């Protein structure tokens, strides 16, 4: 019996887990190659190499032009088996590709009873339409297959898009194996896309060609150029590799190349644990135009897949360095959720557009402190009727109420003052969408300059409200600009008859956060009129209704934690629910095995409500995986319970 168990932790589709080959437990992700060693799972072809020895291996069955069945008996009980197929045939078109899968299905039937299907690995051909692939894979799944391999040929580029797209079609609890030529720099990328196993063949091939592999390039150890200095265990003793004899050089290169794969893989895993895998991927693609195009295309076309497994919360700094970040799952999801979920409070009669600041949350930055002081000097308590809206790249617009939210409070961008066209368009679109949520009578005061001003200008035609500009091209925090802002707001106080009211910052913040987290209606459900709010935004604000706490705003994360009462109030919205197959909970965690149904909206890190099989609320907590995973996985922690009904 072979089994793949996915463990805790997510960063995009990347995951860690255990691949159980009989009694041997192999931590995923792992490397495959030859020979079979302690750190590398060996692979070989049945009937072509020496008989398998040592620990469990991955063994390929030779081409169907042979009597493939006859090879199977050489595999040992714990070995996994790559199903037989033809090289290159799928390039004859979709029909041929389909036949490659059909012949594998046929083979499984032929060897029925000889091999436990959980040990089999299906080879996914290129050239197959994703829908077709999904339906054929369902057949493999019903036969008990739990692993698939896909093929790459060297440094990643747009030609690999179809393979990545096929990857998204795999059942989520399958082991995904990347075979072929995998460059070391591809490892973070492929791991991020949900591959669990990586072929080391390219390390060996490169060594055999006299090539030393690096993250960003390849180095040929021949000719007149002095080889680079390398302090890895394989290279450290040799100052000039050209002086080594053939055998020794090959051994050194092979050792070095394996080292770099191992180091990249371990960096990828650590990055996942730290929530920085996406950053690692973006950093590494920058060295290759082809890999960058692939990531951009993946962002766009496989967004749903990337986003589904990307945690919604995090506490690490999010460096958004280049255009690859503009549509990264965290960033685009923020813009999408803001657009679809957030509703400005009705008492806002003036929108004040402000530039972002390097320091987060914005209100703690020097520039925003000045803006706030100016607003308060001009209109005092009537500040509550001002929708302070921060323009930024690449998140678009951020209402003041959501400035502490992830990723708004955690992102960072290289600031030059220059915006590229895509950034401007993204922000302008977000601005237009956001302003459409306000009444036409609302006045927009644009206290921005430079690139921010270009954003407003490029949105202007699509904005129905009137816009007042205050900076006259000067820096918004300059004395003149602030003076101008103060005068404008003063004027507006009269024009719009702005009045002071009860302070609304807590209520606006909690409601906006609730809507953002749980969708429209959640704000009113959790923070109804008359709710008592107390605390500090930068620490914690507790919301009580009739003395019973519904939720608490946690300043660090900028998000809400639910109480059981809060959970009950969310039930009618029918969102973010998990159904536990039982009546009552034992213990502090809920495992995937106990869940057959869950809201597919749920992402790792979301606050969720747990219902029992009679639709009663039994707990609230934090999801550890996405809704689909809770349903499909047989093992693993699905929800960390915060409060439960006792």
């Amino acid at each position: 019996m072979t089994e793949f168990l996915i463990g805790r932790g997510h960063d995009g589709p990347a995951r860690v887990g255990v691949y159980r080959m009989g009694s041997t437990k192999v931590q995923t992700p792992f490397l495959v190659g030859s020979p079979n060693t302690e750190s590398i799972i060996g692979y070989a072809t049945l009937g072509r190499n020496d008989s398998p020895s040592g620990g469990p291996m991955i063994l390929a069955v030779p081409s169907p032009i042979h009597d493939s069945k006859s090879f199977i008996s050489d595999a040992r009980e714990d070995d996994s088996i790559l199903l037989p197929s033809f090289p290159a045939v799928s390039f004859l078109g979709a029909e041929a590709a389909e036949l490659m899968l059909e012949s594998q299905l046929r083979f499984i039937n032929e060897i029925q009873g000889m091999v436990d299907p959980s040990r089999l690995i299906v080879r996914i051909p290129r050239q197959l339409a994703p829908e077709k692939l999904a339906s054929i894979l369902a057949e493999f799944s019903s036969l008990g297959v739990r692993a698939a391999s896909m093929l790459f040929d060297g440094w990643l580029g747009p030609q690999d898009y179809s393979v990545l797209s096929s990857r998204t079609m795999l059942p989520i609890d399958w082991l995904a194996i990347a075979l072929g030529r995998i460059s070391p720099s591809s490892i973070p990328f492929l791991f991020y896309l949900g591959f669990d196993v990586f072929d080391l063949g390219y390390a060996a091939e490169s060594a055999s060609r006299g090539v030393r592999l690096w993250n960003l390039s390849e180095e040929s150890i021949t000719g007149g150029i002095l080889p680079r200095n390398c302090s890895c265990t394989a290279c450290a003793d040799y100052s000039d590799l050209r002086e080594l004899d053939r055998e020794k050089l090959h051994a050194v290169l092979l050792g070095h190349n394996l080292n770099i794969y191992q180091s990249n893989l371990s960096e990828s895993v650590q990055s996942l644990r730290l929530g920085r895998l996406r950053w690692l991927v973006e950093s590494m693609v920058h060295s290759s135009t082809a890999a960058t195009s692939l990531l951009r295309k993946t962002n766009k076309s496989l967004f749903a897949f990337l986003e589904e497994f990307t945690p919604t919360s995090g506490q690490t700094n999010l460096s958004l360095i280049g255009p690859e970040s503009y549509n990264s799952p965290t960033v685009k999801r923020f813009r999408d959720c803001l657009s679809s979920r957030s509703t400005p409070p009705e008492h806002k009669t003036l929108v004040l557009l402000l530039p972002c600041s390097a320091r987060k949350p914005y209100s703690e930055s020097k520039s925003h402190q000045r803006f706030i002081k100016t607003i308060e000097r001009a209109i005092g308590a009537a500040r509550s009727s001002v929708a302070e809206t921060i323009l930024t790249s690449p998140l678009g617009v951020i209402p003041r109420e959501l400035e502490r939210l992830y990723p708004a409070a955690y992102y960072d961008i290289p600031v030059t003052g220059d915006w590229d066209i895509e950034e401007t368009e993204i922000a302008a679109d977000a601005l237009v969408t956001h302003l459409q949520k306000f009444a036409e009578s609302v006045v927009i005061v644009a206290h921005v300059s430079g690139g921010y001003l270009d954003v407003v200008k490029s949105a202007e035609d699509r904005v129905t409200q009137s816009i007042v500009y205050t900076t006259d091209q000067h820096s918004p925090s300059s004395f003149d600009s602030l003076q101008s802002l103060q005068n404008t707001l003063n004027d507006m106080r009269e024009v719009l008859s702005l009045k002071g009211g009860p302070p609304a910052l807590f209520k606006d913040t909690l409601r906006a956060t609730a809507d953002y987290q749980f969708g429209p209606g959640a704000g009113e459900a959790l923070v109804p009129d008359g709710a008592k709010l107390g605390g500090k935004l930068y620490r914690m604000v507790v919301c009580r209704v009739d003395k019973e706490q519904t939720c608490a705003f946690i300043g660090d994360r900028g998000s809400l934690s639910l109480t059981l009462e809060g959970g009950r109030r969310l039930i009618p919205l029918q969102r973010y629910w998990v159904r536990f197959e039982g009546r009552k909970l034992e213990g502090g965690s809920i495992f995937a095995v106990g869940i057959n149904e869950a809201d597919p909206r749920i992402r790792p890190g979301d606050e969720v409500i747990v219902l029992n099989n009679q639709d009663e609320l039994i707990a609230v907590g934090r999801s550890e995986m996405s809704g689909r995973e809770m349903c499909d996985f047989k093992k693993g922690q699905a929800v960390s319970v915060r409060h439960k009904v006792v």
Partner: protein
Amino acid sequence: MSDIIERLEHILVDSTVKARGTSVAKRRRRNPTKPSAKWIAPARIGNEVGVALAVVLGTVGCSHARGDSGGCTMCSYLLDGDERSPTTDELLQQFDNAHSELTDETAPLSVKIYTSGSFFDTTEIPSDVRTKILARIAKDERIQEVVIESRPEYVTPDIMRETRDILGSRRIELGIGLESSNDAIRSICINKGFSLSTFKGAVANAKEYDIGIRAYVLLKPPFLTERDALLDAVKTIEDAAKLGVSTVSMNPVNIQKYTLVERLWRKEQYSPPWLWTVMSVLRDAWNKVGSSINILCDPVAAGKVRGAHNCGSCDESITSAIREFSIHQDISVFDSLDCDCMRQWHHVLNHEDISLLIHSRSRRS
């Protein structure tokens, strides 16, 4: 599995026809009185070394490649032919033109008649032309060996009898493209269009009249890994020897224009064999059956990107060893060959089988 192979065959036929494109219809007009090619070279004739004339008659081309079946995946020899069938006289002139190359040579001589198709196919070579050409050879006493090429379906008892009658006691060898003894490979990798039983029938018909068979064995058709290609070629040579052929000519695939192989090669889904593979096949096969048959190999475009090649620095020495082997049937010519690229070749043998990635030699970084 047989139905899957059958469906693959259909796809393959479509793909080869597509790869052929309009190349067959658009063949350029050629002088119908001159052969497509002719050359003379030293050759092993029986147990002596003599001179062989090879002539490629320009005909309308191979029936298999002309037709709806698209022809073989690697072959576009028929492009040497003409879209119009030459007349009887023109075909004879072609032969005479080539024959005159032998004027100054002395016995023993060998004549090889190729047509980029089948000499025995009457749609290419009408029967009167065939008998007249054979009669002209019969008149030339110096010629001790005749090699003729044909697909096996044209190797009938009648034609064999007639050929033997005209050529008398000369050694006659019939070149037939067996390519592979594996029916699945011959059909879905090569699109050859006949089965092993047809080949066996041709061997029997020829033997009846003491006509030997020179089996052409293909090294590395598409859709095989380097190692499967190597193993299949060795196995085929062994099988051919068992079937009673007199000679094996082993042909590493080279990339010809307007073929499916060329298309795959352009997409980096096909790579010509390594010269190490060629060498291994010859050595392994000779160790098994070298005592009973001659194994020949003259790799086309060896050392070039479109032919069997290695790293570039060892190609020449290996190619000349292969040619040397063909003449003397001595495998010790391979003993001293070595190069840094051998390790890379070993890697490809192993890794292609596991990954099924075609290790194209251009796309690496």
